[in-house]
C-alpha cells in the first residue's frame, strides 16, 4: 500500500470558534470549537458517545448549522453557499449506510450525478467504475436492492455513492461501526487506499482508537463538546494531553502488547 501523500499545507476546511446548541438556551453540543483540516489529510474525530463528534462532522456539509462561529472551505464561508449544491460537492457516508431502500445499488450510486444532471451514459460508466473501486463486481451488484446486501456490501455501496460526483472531501460517520471484524478491517483498508488514490480530504468519526491510530494522519480527540487534543498518532502516543487521552490510548496499547506476545510465541 502506498504511503499517504504529504498534505500540501493549503487549509481546506476551517472550523472557527463554532458552538452549537440544539435548543435555545439548552445544553451545548459543542463549545467554541476550532479545527483546521489540511488538504489531502485523513483526520479522525474520536471521543465517547455524545461528545459532539457527529455534530462536528455535520458542520462541514451544513447538515448541522452552527449557533455561532464560522465554517470555511477553501477560504469561503459555507453559510453563504446553497446547502444542496454544497452537499453535492462533499461525499458523506452515514452510520448504517443510509442507502435508499427503494433504489437499486446502481440507482443509489447514481443519485448525486443525477442531481447534477450528468448524461446517462456518463452516469452508467461512473457507476461501473465506482463499483470496481469499492471492489464489488458491477455485473453482479448493480441491479440488486439494498436489502439483498450484507452489511459490508452496503457500506461499500454507500462509499461508492459518496464518491460518485468526484467530491474532493469525504466525510465518514462511524462507517464501520456495525460490521463484523473481518469486513471492518477490509473496508477500512479500502477507505484508506481510496483516500490516497483519489487524493481526498477525509474526515472520519469513530469511537475506536485502534482504527484512528491505524488510518488517520491526525487525530482530534473530543470530550463533552470540546477539543481535548489534536495531533498525529505519534504525538498522541508520545504526549497525551491529559489522563483522558492517555486512558483512550490504553486499549490499543494493551491489545498491541498482547498481540505482539501472541505472535512472538
Amino acid at each position, binding site marked *: 500500500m502506498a504511503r499517504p501523500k504529504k498534505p500540501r499545507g493549503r487549509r481546506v476546511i476551517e472550523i472557527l470558534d463554532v458552538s452549537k446548541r440544539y435548543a435555545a438556551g439548552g445544553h451545548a453540543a459543542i463549545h467554541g470549537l476550532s479545527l483546521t483540516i489540511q488538504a489531502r489529510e485523513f483526520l479522525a474525530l474520536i471521543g465517547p458517545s455524545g461528545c459532539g463528534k457527529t455534530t462536528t462532522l455535520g458542520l462541514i*456539509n451544513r447538515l448541522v448549522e452552527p449557533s455561532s462561529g464560522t465554517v470555511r472551505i477553501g477560504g469561503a464561508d459555507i453559510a453563504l453557499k446553497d446547502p444542496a*449544491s*454544497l452537499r453535492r460537492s462533499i461525499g*458523506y457516508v452515514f452510520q448504517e449506510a*443510509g442507502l*435508499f*431502500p427503494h433504489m437499486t445499488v446502481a440507482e443509489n450510486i447514481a*443519485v448525486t450525478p443525477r442531481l447534477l444532471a450528468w448524461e446517462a451514459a456518463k452516469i452508467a460508466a461512473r457507476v461501473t467504475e465506482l463499483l470496481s473501486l469499492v471492489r464489488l463486481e458491477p455485473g453482479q451488484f448493480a441491479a440488486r436492492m439494498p436489502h439483498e446486501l450484507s452489511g459490508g456490501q452496503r457500506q461499500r455501496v454507500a462509499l461508492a455513492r459518496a464518491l460518485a460526483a468526484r467530491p474532493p472531501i469525504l466525510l465518514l460517520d462511524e462507517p464501520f461501526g456495525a460490521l463484523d471484524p473481518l469486513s471492518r478491517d477490509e473496508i477500512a483498508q479500502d477507505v484508506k487506499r481510496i483516500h490516497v488514490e483519489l487524493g481526498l480530504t477525509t474526515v472520519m468519526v469513530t469511537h475506536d482508537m485502534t482504527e484512528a491510530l491505524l488510518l488517520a494522519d491526525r487525530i482530534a480527540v473530543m470530550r463533552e463538546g470540546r477539543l481535548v487534543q489534536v495531533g498525529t498518532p505519534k504525538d498522541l502516543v508520545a504526549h497525551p494531553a491529559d489522563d483522558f487521552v492517555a486512558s483512550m490510548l490504553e486499549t490499543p496499547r494493551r491489545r498491541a502488547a498482547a498481540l505482539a506476545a501472541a505472535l512472538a510465541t
Partner: protein
Amino acid sequence: MTSFHEALALLPDYLGQHVLLTIAALGLGIGVSLPLGIVAARCSRLAAPLLALAAIVQTIPGLALLALFYPLLLALSLLSQDLLGVSFRALGFLPALAALTLYAMLPILRNTVTALHGLDRAVLTAAKGVGMTPRQSLLLVELPLAAPVIVAGVRTSAVWVVGTATLSTPIGQTSLGNYIFTGLQTENWVFVLFGCVAAALLALVLDQLLALAGAGLALRSRPRMIASVVGLVLVIGASLLPLGHKERGVVIGAKNFGEQYILAELLADRLHRRGLSTSTKSNLGSSIAFSALSAGEIDLYVDYSGTLWTSQMHRTDMPGREKMLAEISRWLNQRGLAVAARLGFENAYVLAMRADRARALHIASLSDLAAHPGMKMGGDFEVFSRPEWKSVERAYGPDFAVKRQYQPEFLYRAVDSGDVDVISAFSSDGRVAKYGLTLLADPKGALPPYDALLLVSQKHLHDARFMAAIASLNGAIALPVMQAANLQLDRDSKTPAEAARWLAERIDRPVPAGH
C-alpha cells in the same frame, strides 16, 4: 321485458355516470389530499386539525352531506350570477362531486401523513446529505417510499366513493343508486339487488386494480404497473364510452315516488314522438325538484297545487280550488315558470287507516280520529314538517302517542301490519287500494287540494314542438286511471315504463262515438 332486462338496458347510462362521478371525485380527492397530507406531515401543528376535520366530514351521513351541497351550490350559483353573470348547475354532478371529494379525502390524507411520518429518519438525512433539495427529497425519496401506504388509502377511498355515490341519485345525479332508489320506491327488488351488485362489483374491480398498482409500486414491478394502468383505462374508458354521444335534450324531473316515475316516462315518450331527445332526473326531493325547475336545471316536472301552495308559497289560508290555482299560476309566472297542463287528477295528502280498524273504531274523518287519543301515527319523511300537518293539528288537534317516519313503501306495510294505526297517504297511490285502506275525510278543509300540474319554464311555452307534445295531457288523466297505473307498479310489480305505456294507451284511445 323483465325487470332484469330493463335494468340491463339502463346499465350503460347508470354505470357510465357512476364511474365518471367516482373517478372525478377520487381524482379531485387525491389532488387535494395528497398536497394537504404532504404539508400536514411537515407541519405537525396543521396535521391534527386537518385530520380531525376530515374525520368529522366522515361522520356526516353520506345522504346528508350530498343533500347539503345542493343549497350551498345553489346559493353560490346565484351569487356568481349576480357578481359575474355566470351561473352553474347546482343540481346533479357538481354537488355530488363536491360531497364525494370530501368523503374521499380522509383515508388519503391520513395515510399520506402516517406514511411520511413513519419514514426512517436515517434515510431522510441521507437524502439531505447527498445534496437533495427538500423538493427532490420529497419526489425522489419520501413519496416513492410512502407510495404503498398512500395507495392503500386511495383504495379505501375508492371503495367508499363507489358506495356513497349511489346516494347521489336524490340530488339529481344519475348513478347506480337510481336502481336502488327506484327499486325501493316501486318494490322492484330485482332493481335494488341489481344496483347493489353492480356497485359492489365496480368497487371490487377498482380496488383490485389499485391493489395491483400498489404492488407494482412497492415491488417496482413495471409489468404490474402497466397492467393496472391498462386495466383502469379499460374499465373507465368502457364505462364512459356510452356517455359520449348523449346530448342533454329536454330534462324531465321526477320526485321520489312511483307516480312521478310513471309520469316522467309518459312525458319522455310524448317528447320522443315529436322528435325531441330527453333525459330524466328522477328521485328528486320535493323542494329540490321545484328549485331545479326555477334554476333551469330541469325543464318540466309534475307537481301538486297544494304542495306548491304550502311548501313553496308558504300559504296557510284555503281560498278554494279555482282561486288557489289562479294565484299559483300568477305566482309561477312571476318566477318565469308556468303551468303547461292540469293533468286532471288529484294526489292529495290524506290520512289513512286500515278499513277494518277504521270500521271497528267508527272513524271516518279527521274529527272522529281526534276523539281517539293515544293512537300511533306513521308518516313519510316530510309530512310532519310540512305546513299541511300544522294545519291539521290546528283544525283537529289529534293526539298521537307516537309519530314514526318511514320510507313510503314501508309506511304502507307498517299500517297494514298494525305497527301504526294511521298513516299519511296519497289519494292517487295504488297502495291505498292494494292494502284496502280507508281515507279519512277532512270536513274542516284543513288540507288543500292537490291537483297534478305539469310545470315548465316559460321559455318552453313558445316552443311549438314541445307544447304539441304535452298539449294532449291537459285533463287527460282521471284519478281512477292514475290510481290504476300506480297500482300496476305497487301490486303487479310492473316497471314505470310499462305502467306509462298502459297509461298512454288510455290517454290516446279515441273516445267511442256516441259518448
